[in-house]
């Protein structure tokens, strides 16, 4: 129990889930765009993996925002965040990013699903086709901005915590990069898991494409985690104590070494390399690898949030 309670704890597990879900949404959208433009190219609406990403991105971002609103002490007054802005506040900038991101995300999904929308609207709402036509006219701009926004959203979840000067482990310039990378890999993993659940072919080019990106992504993530903690140790003082408190013996130390490094990073890396080496990908392999990745990122969010608030400046 004591692992989830400490003297200076302000933000608890709902925030960790919010950070996780926002990262999944950003990552899923990023990989959906990559899959459509660099891998599938024609009839993206028929790809199980793009479909999965188009389903996961809106559901996770909505769920994340829902958690965030219910976690306020005045949940019914959340609209004030949308009306009043403070340009120096990371949260305020994040709300702006989230708003525009959500709108553009739905526009882009409508474009991918255009064949279905056009088929339906022909019978019921013919003027809807004017909108889908307009959307496809602005598609390149829309896609470009959406990619930038999804990367911003992924990094924002890290900046949200790194803006806290009182906690030396969180007030760390590497944190946004770490959250961005792990958010992208959670998006990739959720698209793969959703794709195979939506009867996508586990041995398809989409899976091979994502796995090819995931291998360097995991390797860079390990380097960034190493840099994160080396930075703290070399800074000395309370930063070093924070790193030692987080990584040492105890509940969170076990979560880091076994949960994040083994289950979250090493196992998916090994499985990816194994699947690249062997000829055929199986349903269970793809699903298990993706589940390990997702679990690892969820643990990383909790680990950073709780151990970050353990040591104060």
């Amino acid at each position, binding site marked *: 129990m004591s692992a989830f309670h400490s003297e200076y704890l302000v933000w608890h597990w709902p925030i960790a889930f919010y950070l996780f879900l926002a990262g999944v949404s950003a990552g899923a959208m990023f990989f959906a765009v990559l899959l459509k433009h660099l891998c599938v190219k024609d009839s993206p609406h028929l790809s199980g993996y793009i479909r999965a990403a188009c389903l996961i991105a809106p559901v996770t971002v909505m769920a994340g925002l829902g958690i965030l609103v219910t976690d306020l002490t005045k949940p019914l007054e959340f609209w004030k965040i949308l009306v009043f*802005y403070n*340009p120096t506040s990371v949260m*305020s900038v994040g709300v702006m990013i989230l708003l525009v991101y959500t709108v553009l995300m739905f526009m882009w999904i409508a474009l991918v699903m255009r064949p279905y929308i056009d088929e339906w609207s022909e019978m019921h709402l013919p003027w809807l086709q004017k909108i889908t036509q307009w959307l496809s006219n602005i598609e390149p701009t829309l896609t*470009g901005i959406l990619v930038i926004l999804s990367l911003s959203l992924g990094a924002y979840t890290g900046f949200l915590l790194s803006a806290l*000067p009182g906690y030396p482990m969180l007030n760390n310039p590497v944190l946004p990069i770490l959250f961005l990378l792990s958010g992208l890999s959670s998006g990739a993993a959720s698209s793969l898991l959703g794709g195979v659940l939506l009867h996508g072919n586990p041995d398809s080019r989409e899976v091979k494409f994502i796995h090819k990106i995931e291998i360097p992504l995991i390797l860079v993530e390990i380097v960034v985690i190493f840099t994160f903690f080396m930075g703290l140790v070399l800074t000395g003082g309370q930063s070093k104590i924070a790193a030692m408190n987080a990584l040492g013996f105890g509940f969170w130390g076990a979560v880091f070494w076994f949960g994040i490094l083994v289950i979250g990073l090493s196992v998916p890396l090994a499985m990816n390399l194994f699947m690249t080496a062997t000829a055929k990908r199986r349903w269970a392999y793809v699903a298990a690898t993706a589940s390990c990745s997702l679990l690892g990122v969820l643990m990383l969010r909790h680990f950073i949030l709780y151990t970050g608030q353990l040591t104060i400046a």
Partner: protein
Amino acid sequence: MDNIRRQFIKGGTALVAATSLYLLHDAGAQEELPQTKKRYALLHDETKCIGCNACAEACRLTNQVPQEVARLRIERTGPYGEFPDQYYRFTRVSCQHCEEAPCVNVCPTGAANIDRSTGIVSVNSWKCVGCQYCIAACPYHIRFINPVTHAADKCDFCKETNLREGKQPACVMACPTGALMFGDLEDPHSKIVAALNSQPVYRAKEDLGTHPKLFRIRAKAGEVSL
């Protein structure tokens, strides 16, 4: 294909340019401390403090602070030294009224603000939605959620109570040993400016760049606790 690429680059560049221009526009202003007409500060003389908690009780009464929370606490450490020469140290735990306040920087709605006419870090409890970002951001850990208003709350130098009536803050008036001094740093003839200029003072966690306006006079020599 070429056209698509061109359009993508155009859109992307426009967004990046707009963002960087906006950030650049803000960058110059960041360096200056906010200009206020008055700059109220407090000096806690720890050599005079006896830890009686009269200040904390007066604060609670004057500002109607609910029992389960507090705007002001006196933290006691010790005893230090050998019997019979033993002593305690008393540290004031309350808002430091930073000039570069992290709580004000992170507040998404601007509910946390620095009052322009007094330099007092204040909370607009109507604007506050209770995200608790300010509570996490404050390096002094003095903010709390008021169980009655559900908004973030903390010391405001009695801005809405005693100060409005032209009186000194409740804690200053209640202190039996005169350990607290309140005044305006902008006024070169004020007692607090004279006091700050005539003896060594310190502030908590100055290295974080927060420019706190709660000054302290250290109680006794000796930093090593055995």
